[in-house]
């Protein structure tokens, strides 16, 4: 829902890192998106094509690596993927679980020339 703000921050971050690396052109951006972050890749792609216009990142490919939501059971320490919003340990059926992955939202690397 908040892809506009997220994409703007991403473009700023990418341009800053590219400048630090004395890059002439950004060819690819590798993003890591957690399932829970609620960020929709297609929307990021769409906004990116508008926001990167006339920058060295214009035309860069955006690659998304998605991290599934994972939780750890506090009773038996089982780590499991949360599916269908089912926050229950599949081993011991405890509801006492903590989130361990799925909220990622970061730029892993950029490919430049």
């Amino acid at each position, binding site marked *: *829902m908040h892809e506009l703000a997220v994409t703007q*921050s991403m473009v*700023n971050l990418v341009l800053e890192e590219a400048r630090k690396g004395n890059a002439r052109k950004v060819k690819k951006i590798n993003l*890591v998106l957690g399932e829970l972050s*609620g960020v929709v890749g297609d929307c990021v792609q769409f906004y990116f094509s508008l926001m990167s216009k006339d920058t060295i990142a214009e035309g860069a490919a955006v690659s998304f690596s998605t991290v599934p939501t994972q939780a750890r059971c506090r009773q038996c320490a089982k780590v499991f993927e949360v599916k269908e*919003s089912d926050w229950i340990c599949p081993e011991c059926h405890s*509801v006492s679980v903590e989130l*361990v992955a799925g*909220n990622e939202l970061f730029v*892993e690397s950029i490919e430049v020339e």
Partner: protein
Amino acid sequence: MEIEVLKDILSANDQMAERNRALLDSKKVTVFNIMSSPGSGKTSLILETIRALKKQVRIGVIEGDIASTIDAQKVGEEKVPVVQINTGGECHLEASQVGRALESLPLDKIDLLLVENVGNLVCPGEFKLGEHKKVLILSVPEGDDKIHKYPLLFSMADAIVISKIDLLPYARFDIPGFLKAIKGMNRKAKIFQVSCTTHEGIEEWAKWVRSSIARQGQRSRNRSGPSETPDCPVRPGRGITPRYSSRAS
């Protein structure tokens, strides 16, 4: 050539939030970020909090809405300083907007700043504002399944307020089941059950607000190291990616 970045996309917002937090700590202002879906009773809880505490606590309010000054006017009638932020379409408040709003508030004369976020159970969770506590409101008519549909906010909250409990006889809301689900997902959250119509539960809520301010004040006075409740330094689920947690700063 590949350049490793490993930086959170929202790090610019996070840095701005840290600046807000440092300013507010230096002014000894305790800040709550109040989040819920539209119509859950954020403004009503703010008004109840002001009425319950204004003789003992100096309160300021930042109202966040996509448009209008309706909420700021309501709060202004209680004779407390209030600033309205209109996001003009954005579905959440950002730290830079709050930073600008802080410039218009008499921070030396405020003990508690209540920031009402834009009504939304999704996006506000991603954007830190510089708050000390995240307060999440869920109203009875919305249903007890919201914790499973919007786990991010529920897992982050420091306090969860179940509002409109006067409607429990008319709505299907399984309080024991909901409490069990919260305790499973978020053990630290304080849970309150209130009605802003009958005022049930407000006293208990107000007591917690006062004790939060007192604890925050104590920490500000004893400040020697980093802030006491770091503003979710590792957001739930962040940092588990090994490369990220070990390298990003």
